């Protein structure tokens, strides 16, 4: 019974710790783990290795720490490895300090602190200049305790032996009767004494409190999590998943511009932009970041540029950020894709060679990205000019496409979408007219809903546009007329009143977007 109790008390802290770690890492921060892997350079090349080794012990720690981060490409693997290492640290610490089981929970405090340091991070991942050093202190702590462990074992043995020797010599001098009646203090001690349980309870409480604090520190911003989920779905060309995430957005929480951009990109890729763009959540929520930065560019810039046919700008921002933040696999990945799209094979091969030196990347240039590139190629039919975006990715893309003339069908569609988003009536009409025969030919004369809504609205606003030859659905016409009637009836009320009142009926229309979605700022 005593033995069973001892085992339970001994196993409780590590089991609880492991469970807690896995809940925090996989349950709360799974997407973040995957993102950390993508943002951490780790390559099995002599050049990368020697660069780190030139930094001495810190470089070796960084190499090991980067390796841990690299395993997070598969979050479960990374989380398991990290959990095991954190547990190992606690056990080594317990061993080094020769603590009894009753105090063992205290040994988990440093591990919980280190875990918290990792899980408390969010947007600063993108501006962190020492990628790969996240677990340096964990590695160093393990190394120190591992080195100290045999020494402390030897020291304990030595001191115990010398104390036993002195006791033996003392006992030789004392009387035999006293000698026989005395037993060693250790043999007398019960493993489950009340004092031990009290100590254990205090230490365990300390561990639980630290666990609570770690959980409290953990960055749990829902928008950030959704951004990462969308980003990873975009990476995998899984556009439906992006829309699913957008739909799951908490209605009380405004999305960030990154989420809006990802959603619109997915809608465009799935050919749904003309039907559904304005029925998805829109917003410009602040990023829950400690400092103001161009997070849209830092997180989503290369992806948006690449998938929207601007490989030079995708490449450029990867290169700029690589200078600031290191040779991160995600940058290399989009530099590779952009080079492929640009037909720069030798350059793409260079990036592929480097990425293939990462243990969790396997790139076959002959097969990978071919479908993806084929889908983007129709967006590349534009002339070269000298330009610049100033890092304002969304604004640049909207402006660039809305004012673009001609190009492939895919480009004109994108231009039309951008003109709608910018509420640009003048750019809308030539694009709309250019697309009419396409819809007639390809879509059975069915014009996507938002374009019909925009045409009705702009014709109404301008007054001199004849839409009699344009195939506008009757129900859309009716809805529009109803909207006009309601707007006229409630014109004495302010915009805020009308926005709230009309939202249930018209919240998914371009009209609502045009009148009531205002003042959004790209960030």
């Amino acid at each position, binding site marked *: 019974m005593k033995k069973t109790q001892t085992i339970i008390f001994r196993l409780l802290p590590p089991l609880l710790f492991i469970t807690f770690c896995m809940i925090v890492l996989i349950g709360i921060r799974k997407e973040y783990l995957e993102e950390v892997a993508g943002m951490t350079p780790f390559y099995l090349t*002599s050049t990368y290795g020697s660069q780190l080794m030139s930094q001495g012990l810190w470089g070796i720690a960084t190499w090991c720490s980067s390796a841990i981060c690299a395993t997070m490409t598969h979050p479960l693997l990374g989380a398991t490895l990290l959990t095991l290492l954190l547990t190992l640290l606690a056990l080594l610490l317990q061993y080094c300090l020769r603590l009894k089981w009753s105090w063992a929970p205290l040994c988990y405090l440093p591990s919980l602190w280190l875990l918290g340091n990792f899980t408390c991070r969010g947007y600063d991942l993108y501006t962190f200049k020492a990628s790969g050093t996240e677990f340096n202190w964990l590695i160093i702590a393990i190394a120190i305790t591992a080195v100290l462990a045999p020494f402390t074992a030897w020291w304990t043995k030595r001191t115990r032996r010398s104390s036993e020797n002195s006791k033996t010599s003392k006992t030789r001098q004392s009387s035999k009767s006293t000698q026989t009646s005395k037993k060693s203090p250790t043999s007398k001690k019960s493993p489950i004494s009340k004092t031990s349980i009290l100590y254990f309870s205090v230490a365990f409480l300390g561990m639980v409190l630290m666990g609570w604090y770690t959980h409290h520190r953990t960055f749990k911003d829902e928008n950030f999590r959704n951004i990462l989920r969308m980003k990873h779905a975009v990476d995998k060309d899984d556009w439906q998943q992006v829309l699913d995430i957008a739909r799951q957005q908490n209605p009380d929480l405004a999305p960030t511009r990154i989420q809006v951009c990802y959603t619109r990109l997915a809608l465009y890729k799935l050919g749904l932009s003309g039907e559904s763009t304005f029925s998805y959540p829109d917003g410009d929520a602040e990023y829950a970041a400690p400092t103001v930065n161009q997070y849209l560019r830092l997180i989503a810039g290369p992806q948006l540029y690449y998938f929207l046919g601007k490989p*030079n*700008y995708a490449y450029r921002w990867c290169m*700029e950020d690589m*200078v600031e933040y290191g040779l991160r696999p995600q940058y290399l990945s989009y530099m590779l894709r952009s080079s492929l799209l640009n037909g720069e094979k030798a350059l793409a091969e260079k990036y592929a060679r480097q990425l293939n030196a990462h243990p969790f990347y396997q790139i076959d240039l002959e097969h990978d990205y071919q479908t993806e590139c084929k889908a983007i190629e129709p967006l590349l039919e534009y002339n070269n000019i000298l330009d610049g975006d100033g890092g*304002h990715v969304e604004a640049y893309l909207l402006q660039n496409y809305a004012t673009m003339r001609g190009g492939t069908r895919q480009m004109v569609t994108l231009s039309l979408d951008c003109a709608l988003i910018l509420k640009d009536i003048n750019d809308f009409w030539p694009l709309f007219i250019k697309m009419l025969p396409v819809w007639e030919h390809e879509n059975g004369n069915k014009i996507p809903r938002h374009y019909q809504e925009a045409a009705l609205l702009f014709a109404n606003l301008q007054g001199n546009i004849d839409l009699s030859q344009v195939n506008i659905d009757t129900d859309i016409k009716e809805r529009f007329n109803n909207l006009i009637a309601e707007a006229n009836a409630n014109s004495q009320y302010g915009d805020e009143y009308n926005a709230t009142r009309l939202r249930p009926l018209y919240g998914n229309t371009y009209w609502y977007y045009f009148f009531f979605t205002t003042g959004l700022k790209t960030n």
Partner: protein
Amino acid sequence: MRHYQYLIAILILTVSCTAELPKDAMQTQEPVNVFPDNNGATLPPNIAPMNLRIDTEGEDYITHIYTKSDTDGIITEGKETDIDIDRWHKLLQGAKGDTIYTTVYVRTNGRWTQYPALKNPVVEEEVDPYISYRLIQPSYVDYEDIYICQRRMSDFEEKVIYDNRNFSVDAATGQCVNCHAYQDYNRTGRMQMHLRQHQGGTLIIDGKERRKMNLKTDSTLSAGVYPAWHPTLPLIAYSVNSTGQVFHTRNTQKVEVIDYGSDLILFDMNTNKVYDIDCDPDEYETFPAWAPNGQTLYFCAAHYEQKTDNIDNELDNCYDSLRYNIYSRPYNPQTMKFGDKRTVLNAVGIQKSASLPRVSPDGKYLLFTLGDYGQFHIWHHSARLCLMPCDSIANHPQGNVPFAVLDDQQASYHSWSSNGRWIMFTSRRFDGNYTRLYFAYFDLNGKMHKPFMLPQKRPTYNDELFRSYNVPEWMVEPVQASKNELEQTVRTDALPAIYAGSALEQPIRKERATPTVDAVSGASQVRGNKINY
């Protein structure tokens, strides 16, 4: 510790000595695939071992490097060679005027195949013992991660002269470091380099004396940019440029570096005085270069007359028609005055644009790059190394001098070795984006031989390096100032230069429309945000 090193050395030597050439190898006429491809390149007798990586697929590899007189030569095993430096130099010395052969054996499916030998002629003339270069990621506006390094040519020793990361904490406190240049191959111990933005200024090193100068004056366009040391006098000719970077939306050259204004100045380091050389606002002068006798200054210039009040917009729209000729001005060291400008090469006349004139140390040849437009040919696919004889310049006052195209691949930023027999240049020919260093022998008949890539201890280094080699310069003597001394000088305040009028015998000065450069930073950056978002 030393015993331990000896033991390892003996072990390595024993292992390397045990490598034997396969006796039953099947011969093939197929060329072996190696990186870097230096087959046929002429080598100097003091170059570091030409390590290579064998890219032909196989299970095992043996490389045999030998000469006719030393057929035993060097035998190495493995996919990547790691040639012993002493043994290599012994082989090289014996191969002067002859050829070094490299035969590669590859084992596939248990059978050895012997590939045709790679041949490298070795000449008598040495390369200069040192070079220096800037290692920089080929980015556009971010530049924290920069080193200036010095490399010994006879082995692989690379020493960091200046590490910019010691100063750059973030964008606000960071700076760019560029344009390191030496007088007379650093024989005089005089060196200069620029820092831009935070800690901005020009470091002037004169032996033990070091100072930081602010070469921007109220009367000049910017601080000094592209430098040219006078071969003997304490003078540096500079271009002063209002430079911007604009981005190609589709072209794979990706970025265009445009001068929206540029002039030439002369800096006298004894008096800290700055003189105008050429400051015509309709002429865009840049890239000065002295003749070895110090009596002629060569430079490039484009003619453009500003039409609106927005020169940035104008040039962004016609960047591909802005072309540069090569000009020169005679210089009188006694009066310290420049004479009349004359046309050296009328590149515009053939719809081309010339850049970076560099005269050979014997004064016989002018080396330059020729591209389709512009002056920053390092990004231009069309840039080619070209050569013209200096003695025919006088016979062609219109600048229609016949010239030769030396190489059929992209190249830029070239320089002559001190003996005039070697040309060093950078090129993006390897992967299209990261410049690597190339060295070509220039023979007495004025012919450039096939270049070789800078050898590395690990041959894959050139492939795995994600930085470009930039502004390579030859040096006869190493840099004397230590990294610490340079860094101390960087931290000092910049001394202001004094404007002292024109250095022309017959000064001409027209008013410039809108000079827009901040004081210490030098060349102004025009960021690519053309739209008010």
